[in-house]
């Protein structure tokens, strides 16, 4: 039967050349737009923001003319100009350079924290949901307790305990998201466990580990990918908040949250660019990940055509 989800068939001769590959990609993208509508463009917008930020983080020197730590980059607290598109801060550092280099920090911490949370939370959720019994109850209790704490407060407590440093910040942010993955994966596992294809897998003679790995996990993963993206958005805000309070990184590393905190101090004297740009960057990046997550959510869940 024809599958409406497939895009137009590619011309076979164009399969191998890069131009052909690009044409196919564009073809698929526009076909996808017709299929998915608004969500597709939200996803594209989010992806664009993220990709650009990653580029910024990976190759900061191509975009920033000045060194972010250079305290003689220009006049002190100068408003945005052609020379310094985002102005300079109270230590005469170029704000644009600090934004560009700061992306590396925030992206790195948020991503690493999300990765760590998921690596711990997902397997625990799978095992807990699948095994059930006392193990599940005890683990759920622990996870629910962590979850019931306001995330930021818990992160602050951990950060204060562990002290400053990139690794410690990452750990503090990671801890508060473990229950999110745990609960999501456990819930999905519990419902998928009752599906007929899991019973069919048992009937084939699969071992329980195989059932978990090949039948339950792949069906859980779609929602997890979405949550991962939204999680990074949240982690960005949390990391920014921690360094805003001053529990973040040492002064030597450019950091948006800290710059935000600095900028707040000088706002009453009319210096708006020190706070606006970090704030905008944080919001935009978080928004980018949110849009990616929301767009993915709509697309990854196979929708059945209504008959």
């Amino acid at each position, binding site marked *: *039967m*024809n599958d*409406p989800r497939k895009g137009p068939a590619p011309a076979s001769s164009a399969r191998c050349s890069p131009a052909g590959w690009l044409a196919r990609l564009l073809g698929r993208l526009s076909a996808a737009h*017709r*299929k998915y509508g608004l969500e597709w463009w939200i996803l594209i917008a989010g992806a664009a923001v993220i990709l650009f930020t990653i580029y910024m983080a990976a190759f900061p020197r191509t975009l920033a003319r000045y060194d972010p730590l250079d305290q003689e980059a220009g006049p002190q607290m100068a408003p945005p100009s052609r020379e310094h598109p985002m102005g300079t801060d109270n230590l005469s550092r170029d704000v644009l350079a600090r934004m560009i280099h700061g992306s590396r920090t925030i992206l790195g911490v948020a991503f690493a924290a999300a990765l760590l949370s998921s690596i711990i939370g997902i397997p625990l959720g799978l095992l807990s949901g699948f095994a059930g019994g006392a193990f599940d109850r005890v683990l759920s209790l622990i996870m629910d307790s962590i979850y019931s704490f306001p995330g930021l407060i818990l992160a602050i407590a951990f950060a204060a305990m562990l002290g400053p440093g990139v690794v410690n910040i990452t750990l503090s942010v990671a801890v508060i998201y473990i229950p999110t993955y745990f609960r999501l994966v456990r819930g999905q596992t519990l419902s998928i466990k009752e599906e007929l294809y899991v019973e069919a897998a048992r009937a084939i003679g699969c071992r329980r580990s195989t059932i978990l790995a090949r039948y339950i996990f792949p069906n859980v993963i779609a929602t997890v990918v979405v949550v991962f993206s939204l999680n990074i958005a949240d982690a960005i805000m949390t990391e920014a908040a921690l360094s805003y309070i001053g529990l973040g990184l040492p002064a030597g590393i450019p950091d948006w949250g800290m710059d935000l905190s600095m900028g707040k101090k000088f706002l009453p004297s009319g210096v708006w660019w020190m706070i606006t740009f970090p704030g905008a960057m944080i919001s935009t990046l978080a928004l980018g990940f949110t849009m990616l997550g929301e767009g993915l959510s709509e697309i990854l869940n196979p929708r059945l*055509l*209504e*008959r």
Partner: protein
Amino acid sequence: MDSPVSAEPILQIQNLSIAYPIAIGTVRAVEQVSLELGDAEALGLVGESGCGKSTLGLSILRLVRPPGRITGGRILYHGRDLLAMPEREIRALRGKNITMAFQNPLTSLNPLYRIDRQFLETIRQHEPAVTRPQALQRAEKVLESLGVEPQRLYEYPHQLSGGMRQRVMLALGLVMNPDILVADEPTTALDVIVEAGFIDLLNSLRRDWRLSILLITHNLGLVAEIADRIAVMYAGRLVEVGAAEQVFHRPLHPYTQGLIHCVPNIRVDQERLATMGGSPPDLVEPPSGCRFHPRCPQVMEICPRREPPLASPLIPSPIESAAEAAPQGGEAGRQVACWLYGARP
């Protein structure tokens, strides 16, 4: 079976077409279907999934949900076009003159309300002046005639068994004494013995209440037990219409033939069931000409080129001998959409 008392059909569907857009095109769910339902007649609309029969049933009461829309045709009830009526009027008709019974009564009955309340709501919708005791009395009467004890009024849907729920849903549809019942797969969710009871019920309703029934189903056994006439649908089009016995004993259209011969019959010793090759057609880009031609064992040259009209068969089927063929005059109302029967291209 008795022929309808009055010659004037109570429901006339003329050239009805229904389509709904999907991502890659438009599904032509119903295409130019014309049907008539007589007074106190049971018409069986038969076909497999995707043939459009359910959509057609919904369209009678204008219950087709967007993005599906009726793209053409008329449905005449007592001479008035149901499709052209203002919403207010169609709502007055629903549940009062024309009523519908669906496949799964658990989802059709509101699980939060007691049965009596659902009756009250239905009756008051059409006759707001009716008092509560009057309404309950009518509800009890109709429940009794359907074999449900009146105490059931004071229960919730989940407290009833499947067969009981089906009867309650039917009662809700019949309490306003309608002319027409459209039943879409009413027994799919029922056990065999309960289904038999329900069949008896529908048959007695037809006799005692002079109810016209449009029975939509893929269950050939069910339709054989109830219908006077049968209309067969395939890929959105009508392919055959005729009296029930004639359609079953002498199916004309190759699709009907395939369908009739592939169903196991418990009273008959069958060596092998006939099977139909191919797969159900794509409704976005249906096969050219006759939609059944890719699967037809008797396909001819003209079949992929032109779509055959639904018309009276002019010549007997080539596979029957002249002796077997019944005289054409004896099969009034017989229609088939197939080039095998002498239709003029």
